[in-house]
């Protein structure tokens, strides 16, 4: 096989592995951004965080929110809830960033997978 073509195909294979791992990291982060509270399930995202911040700025100390199933969930302490979800948001996104950067810096299939030779 022509050397240039072989290199191009190797690169395509590397990109495919990279894409699969980026996809998997995203799935993991999305799962970790699901948050249970008072029997409801919330997806932590910028929209939820902004809405909670809006409630606090307008002096709502408690509120009823719709969870991811559109079920009403009463939140007795909006400030504490905002703190919880924000903390989780940054924990997850920081881990995701670390994983993402490690993957992006990996220049071969072996380094993406961190493969060690089997004995």
């Amino acid at each position, binding site marked *: 096989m022509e050397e240039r073509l072989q290199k191009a195909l190797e690169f395509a294979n590397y990109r495919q592995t990279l*894409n*699969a791992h980026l996809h998997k990291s995203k*799935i993991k982060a*999305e799962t970790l951004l*699901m948050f*249970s509270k008072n*029997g409801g*399930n919330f997806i932590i995202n910028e929209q939820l965080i902004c809405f909670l911040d809006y409630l606090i700025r307008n002096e709502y100390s408690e509120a009823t929110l719709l969870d991811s199933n559109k*079920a009403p969930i009463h939140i007795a302490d909006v400030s504490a809830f905002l703190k919880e979800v924000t903390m989780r948001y940054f924990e997850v996104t920081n881990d995701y960033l670390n994983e993402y950067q490690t993957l992006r810096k990996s220049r071969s299939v072996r380094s993406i997978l961190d493969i060690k030779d089997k004995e």
Partner: protein
Amino acid sequence: MSRGVLMYAHNNTEIDYFKIACANALLVKKNLNVPVTLVTDTGTLDWGRKDLGEEFVLSCFDNILEIDRDYSFKNTRNFFDTSYNSKSLQFYNCNHWTAYELSPYDETLFIDVDYLIMSKSLSNCWGSNNEVMINHSILSPLDIKAPYSKVIDDMGIRLYWATVIYFRKSSLAEHLFTLVKHVQENYSYYKDLFYFANGMFRNDNAFSIAVHMLNGFSEEEPAIHELPINGLMMVWDTNDIYDVNGINDITLYAEKTEKGNYILVRIKDTDVHIMNKWAINRFSDKLISLYKEVV
């Protein structure tokens, strides 16, 4: 409120479900930190005790419920070990409807033994307002793979995966399992009604029909919601395990769209359904020795 995981393991002539259940019970204890109950039959349990030792078996499970196996139940399926090898074997799955009655817990996570618990994600279920949760959404470890059928048949009712079911002791959960039993007992009728492709009994089909009925034969305002995860990670039986790297860390051979063309994918801290039972059997000992150290 008692909480725990329930699993069923019934060996056939080649697949050691019991050993997979032992490995997964250790994963559950490490990641979810809840008790595990196993439903099994005498033959499977005797084999497991002989193979792994009584003491080890007791350390994996908090309860072992020994039930009578119905040897008249015949359900043959092809068990694939990658795209290159498959074997037609018995698949004993006719008693999942008993989970409601057999579970000793107020809140139960009923999981297939091959759904490896490698994260804390399912802890989000505990204390849920939903009495039953089961997933329609699934995910593939490969972004390029068109993953699955979203419906059980051409009639178009939604496919739910009985791989993981959360239920709280409640009338809704009881109704669900009663309906599953009904569907199973009348499977040939439902097979014709919904034009299932083959005659093998699948719990996924039975639960999908039962959920459809409980949702009022509609998908508009479902009574039964999905689990608080963004989908079940499915690794089909055409794939294989490359290695178990460590705690909650597995590398897979994932088949791309063409037969025999694999890509390596490393799964970390993510629950995963590995449908190639042979592959898990090959790595059960390694999983057990790794997790025994940390549980």
